[in-house]
């Protein structure tokens, strides 16, 4: 697409997504809206992985570590302070700092792809084990009991900044979550268009060449990794507001899910993973209600099929198709335009449909 086309698409996408954010609470029942908020919080986490894996080339198998850390920091701080304002700030700062520390450890050690994956995965497992073992009164941070396997069921909801009296309703949290998703999406696009982002992408393309051009690749990797950590922490806060904080946030299941969503949506795109995550969550939730069908079975089958048939993911394959249709200008097939962030849960499903065709041809 031409640069001008992209801008137009972005503006349209922005308007559509903002409209969707304001329309959805009137359409959906409260329960569905809370579910939609969970989907959006997971989409933010997916976006963070899409950024560091798809653009930074850092295969992180432990995004759930930042997600869980964000959730726990938020819950512990909010309980102790009685006010969620600084809790939110800290819940982004702590995962970011942790990511920076871990990043320093691995990037300055020049640890590559699979080994990096193992280290990040191991980190998540350590958190999972540790937080599972925090049952009992001995494990308290201030007045917040960590609660072991049960987590912190009384995770306080967000309140207006510096106004403890006004706790936010689920609708408000929806606006915040969806708004943040749009913000993070455009923020990521902006970030990738800066010179910092371009260097990050060039590291993904060719690490050695970038280094020989004089860039300290370690710093750039550390930067994008830290940003991804903060974003996943934010997703953790939102998730904690819809459900509650428990060690499952660190589990292999969440780790696996985000990776699957990014793969299916398309590595190296931002919109693909966002839509992929929302659509797949809806599909799995829908199929999970069928008696006797295990959601793991479906997720697994989806992942295998995508790796074999659509290895690039839905969005890149659709782009290839779109380009092919554009050559003879007579054919204006309704391939969805790029630039349509967070158009709400309903919109996501149809855009998944042409995936089978894309797989056959590319």
């Amino acid at each position, binding site marked *: 697409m031409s640069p001008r086309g992209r801008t137009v698409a972005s503006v349209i996408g922005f308007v559509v997504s903002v409209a969707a954010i304001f329309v959805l609470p009137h359409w959906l029942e409260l329960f569905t809206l809370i579910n939609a908020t969970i989907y959006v919080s997971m989409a933010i986490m997916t976006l963070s992985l899409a950024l560091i894996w798809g653009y930074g080339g850092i295969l992180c198998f432990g995004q759930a570590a930042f997600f869980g850390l964000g959730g726990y920091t938020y819950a512990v701080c909010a309980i102790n302070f009685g006010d969620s304002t600084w809790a939110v700030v800290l819940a982004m700062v702590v995962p970011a700092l942790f990511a920076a520390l871990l990043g320093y450890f691995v990037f300055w050690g020049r640890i590559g792809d699979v*080994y990096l994956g193992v*280290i990040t995965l191991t980190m998540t497992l350590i958190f999972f*084990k540790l937080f599972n073992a925090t049952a009992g009164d001995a494990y308290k941070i201030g007045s917040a009991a960590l609660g072991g396997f049960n987590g912190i069921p009384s995770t306080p909801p967000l309140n207006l900044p510096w106004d403890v009296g006004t706790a936010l309703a689920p609708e408000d949290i929806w606006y915040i979550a969806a708004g943040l998703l749009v913000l993070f999406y455009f923020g990521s696009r902006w970030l990738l268009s800066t010179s910092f982002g371009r260097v990050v992408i060039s590291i993904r393309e060719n690490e050695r060449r970038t280094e020989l051009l004089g860039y300290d690749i370690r710093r750039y990797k550390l930067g994008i990794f830290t940003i991804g950590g903060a974003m996943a922490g934010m997703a953790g806060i939102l998730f904690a507001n819809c459900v509650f904080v428990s060690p499952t946030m660190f589990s292999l299941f969440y780790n696996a899910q985000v990776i*699957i969503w990014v793969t299916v949506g398309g590595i190296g795109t931002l919109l693909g993973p966002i839509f992929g995550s929302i659509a797949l969550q809806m599909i799995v939730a829908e199929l999970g209600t069928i008696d006797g069908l*295990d959601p793991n079975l*479906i997720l697994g089958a989806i992942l295998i099929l995508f790796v*074999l048939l659509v*290895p690039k993911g839905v969005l890149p394959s659709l782009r290839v198709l779109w380009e092919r249709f554009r050559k003879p200008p007579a054919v204006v097939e309704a391939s969805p335009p790029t630039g349509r962030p967070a158009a709400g849960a309903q919109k996501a499903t149809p855009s998944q449909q042409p995936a089978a065709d894309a797989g056959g041809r590319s």
Partner: protein
Amino acid sequence: MDLAVVVLLQVLAAVASLALISVGLAVIFGMMRVINLAHGEFIMLGGYAVIYATRWGINLWVAMLIVAPLFVGLVGVIVERSVIRFLYGRMIDTMLATWGLSLLLIGAATMIFGNTTTGVSAPLGGVSIGQYQTSIYELVLIVIVAVILIGMMAILRLTKLGLIARATMQNPAMAASLGISTSKVYSVTFGAGAALSGMAGALIAPLSGVLPTMGVAYVAKAFITVISGGAAIITGTLSASGLLGTLNTLATFVATPVIGEVALLFAAIVLLRVLPQGITGKFFRRAL
């Protein structure tokens, strides 16, 4: 004194079980550079194979040492032919595909067997060392693991099959031009790795019970052991499980089992930071 013997036996048992659950993965990773994340589910299938075989009246030892490896090995060959062979040389993609396979198998097992723990009772009873009790089965397990590793070493070093496997591992193009069907070698290797995982699952079934999601508990540990061990299959597995298993047991002994697990994982992280190619990337480089 008795305590020292018991702790030593526990260390040995921990090392043996770590080596046991990792060796199948190590074969597949060492020979084919494929990281099989469905490894845990191969272990789980081995466990179920034993439970069903004993229910049909097959002797427990036959079920553990023959039926389970054969069954899971067959599953491995089918998986290799239907999925893995399209993905050679694409490490990340094979990881993702086998992860999908892992979820698929967990789902299928939950639907077929139900989400409950089933078990077989451990054979052979117990033995007392001074005032401490330990089960004979755990001791036998140490011996079995030693036999498995020695057997693998013998096959790789002494037989023609082993020679072909090592040649393919070192230089697939050269092996192919000398008339070896590398795709057949890969297929057999994957099957053998799966069979070893199945046997591991069968052997730990009496100790841990069998559950559709049991693999998750093992895959990460096995994965970490194999990567820490590095490219050499047997030496790597043995040295990594020796180091990590000892640390785990000692930390458990000093503190709690959770601290033991955390010590293991933390040691692996530090190890990978210091030796990114694993232990055998630096030491014992010419070993198998």
